């Protein structure tokens, strides 16, 4: 008999695990830098503050609006030659919180993307500030790890369309606001 029918109401409680706030940290920022730009030997933090006009222009073209003027960007070089940019960004959907790192080449083409942190939450909503606080303000190189909850779940996860939209938003930001001379 290789078909098991399980009535959900009769499964012992010990086998039912809540996924209230399932969070995992995959990589910290330093690990992501090394993976996305393995040959680089300089990461220069860039202060890029967008003007109101730039934000408006970005929001006209981006699939999702930009809700902060300050971005985490590093200019990446190898032996003084610019390889591109390393950007940290996050996306907050209805149930998912994702912080990701993306490597762009000098022309804004995507080199690679890594998810740094992922949290699926069906309980209380977390604001962007609270989400960022546990990560950014803990010293970017800290050993802070989320890793709560269960892994190895079969059955559809949430779609990555919000993440894809956030990536499109970043590419729009690059087009509007990255000026190689200024950076």
């Amino acid at each position, binding site marked *: *008999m*290789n*078909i*098991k*029918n*399980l*009535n*959900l*109401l009769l*499964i012992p409680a010990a*086998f*039912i*695990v*809540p*996924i*209230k706030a399932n969070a*995992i940290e*995959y*990589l910290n920022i330093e*690990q992501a830098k*090394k*993976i996305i730009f393995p040959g680089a030997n300089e990461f220069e933090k860039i202060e890029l503050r967008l003007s109101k006009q730039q934000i408006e222009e970005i929001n006209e073209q981006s699939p999702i609006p930009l809700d902060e003027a300050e971005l985490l960007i590093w200019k990446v070089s190898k032996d003084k030659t610019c390889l591109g940019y390393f950007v940290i960004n996050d996306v907050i*959907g*209805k149930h998912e919180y994702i912080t990701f790192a993306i490597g762009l080449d000098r022309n804004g083409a995507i080199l690679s*993307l*890594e*998810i740094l942190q*992922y949290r699926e939450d*069906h*309980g209380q909503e977390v604001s962007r500030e609270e989400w960022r606080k546990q990560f950014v303000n803990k010293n970017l190189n800290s050993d802070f790890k989320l890793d709560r909850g*269960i*892994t*190895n*779940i*079969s*059955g*559809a*996860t*949430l*779609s*990555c*369309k*919000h*993440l*894809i939209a956030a990536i499109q938003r970043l590419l729009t930001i690059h087009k509007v606001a990255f000026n190689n001379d200024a950076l």
Partner: protein
Amino acid sequence: MMLFKRAKPLLGTFIEIWVKSSNEDHANTAISEAFNVIKNIEACLSFHQESSEVNAINNSYKNTILTISNYLYEILLISKELYIKSNKIFNISFRNNDFDFLNDIDLTEENKIKINKEVKIDLGGIGKGFAVDKGVEKLIGSGFQTGGINAGGDMKIFGKEQQALYIRSPLAQNKAIKIKEDYNCAIATSANYFRNNSHTSPKDPGIINPTNKQIWDGNRSISIISPSCAISDALTKVVAMVENSLAEKILNNFKAEAIILEH
């Protein structure tokens, strides 16, 4: 030994790849290579990317012979075996198009496909599972003894240590059911978890029964455990559509078992 796990968006979902290793650089290099395998498979099988090999088949005239990649050739052979051993319930035809696997295309020559009749195929029902299998092959080939890949719920684990497997509850997306612990196996699950949720639903019409062309609208989840994620992926659709006695026979053909969660 530490656990190294990374995630990327691919195949329209989140893919997690993990291995146990004592060397971070070796682990991350191998994980990157496994992601590249999945990315390459996505490019060749995608129905949505115009330049994909699948679209080359779909746009070919009758009597064309195409040279195709190892991946595509292999997945077509697996699909053909599934077609035969599932009494033609598993079919890679796109939506309601008719596709006779035994006559419309010919796969007798390695890495070649002969189009006998113009076809429209879609490997979405097996592609994710196949990509997981190939990614795991890459990890094992790199020498890791324990690890796994989870592609949006289609998963394969391998190794010398048991790993726990859960299935998301079909009634409450914030709950999961612990099913087993195992060393090596694959699991795939079909259900309508998020289909009515506008923030997650793709434009997928859902699972269609090829014999009566109706959309399946069950309120349960079906998980298939087998040695291959491609088989598990494909059989979730098949088992949903047939009566138990035929399902048992098909599952036996592939050394698979089904776990149905229902209310």
